[in-house]
């Protein structure tokens, strides 16, 4: 049987860059689309089991991006992983999760103060958890960058 040859790339370098740009935009559209869809469905009070598929895709995408960036010593285009940035990001994540918990709780139990308490608890818990995870990620990122920057040249210099 004739062995199947690897199909030749029909794109030239500019078309390849354009395609990468299109895929990049598509990837982030899917990412934020999934994030918004998950948030809206959570606010609507859907069961977690109904969101399992979207959640798995969203988390796989997030994990892939995080691990790939870490391995290549990349954090962000504009931001550095300073405690201030980590604190700000954790606070935003905490606020979103707190609001989500508040709406879910209020929708289910119609108890305003109880829902506020649940929201505040979730906000604090998420913020602390995010801060811890991002601090660990930042330290891994720093050591990775250090290692990449100290790698020797081919001629051993």
């Amino acid at each position, binding site marked *: 049987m004739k062995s199947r040859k690897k199909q030749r790339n029909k794109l*030239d370098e*500019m*078309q390849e860059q354009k395609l990468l740009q299109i895929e990049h935009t598509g990837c982030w559209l899917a990412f934020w689309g999934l994030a918004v869809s998950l948030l809206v469905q959570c606010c609507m009070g859907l069961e977690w089991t109904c969101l399992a598929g979207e959640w798995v895709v969203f988390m796989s995408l997030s994990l892939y991006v995080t691990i790939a960036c870490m391995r290549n010593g990349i954090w962000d285009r504009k931001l550095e992983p300073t405690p201030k940035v980590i604190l700000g990001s954790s606070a935003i994540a905490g606020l979103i999760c707190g609001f989500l918990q508040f709406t879910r709780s209020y929708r289910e139990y119609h108890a305003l103060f109880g829902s506020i308490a649940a929201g505040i608890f979730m906000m604090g818990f998420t913020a602390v958890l995010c801060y811890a995870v991002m601090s660990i990620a930042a330290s891994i990122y720093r050591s990775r960058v250090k290692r990449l920057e100290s790698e020797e040249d081919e001629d051993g210099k």
Partner: protein
Amino acid sequence: MARNIAIKVARAEKDMTQKELAEAVGVSRQTINAIEQGEYNPTIRLCRAICRVLGKRLDDLFWEEE
């Protein structure tokens, strides 16, 4: 990015169309057009291929005066 007039001139000297140059270096006509219009910054590999086909040096086609 500024327009690359040098490629256009070199192409005219060789009496080549954008399509012919594109075929000679193995890219699409739109890529050659984008390079000439200054809309695309080619890789060094493609720059060398263009220079080879047009019989010019890198400096002649891709050097920009400050």
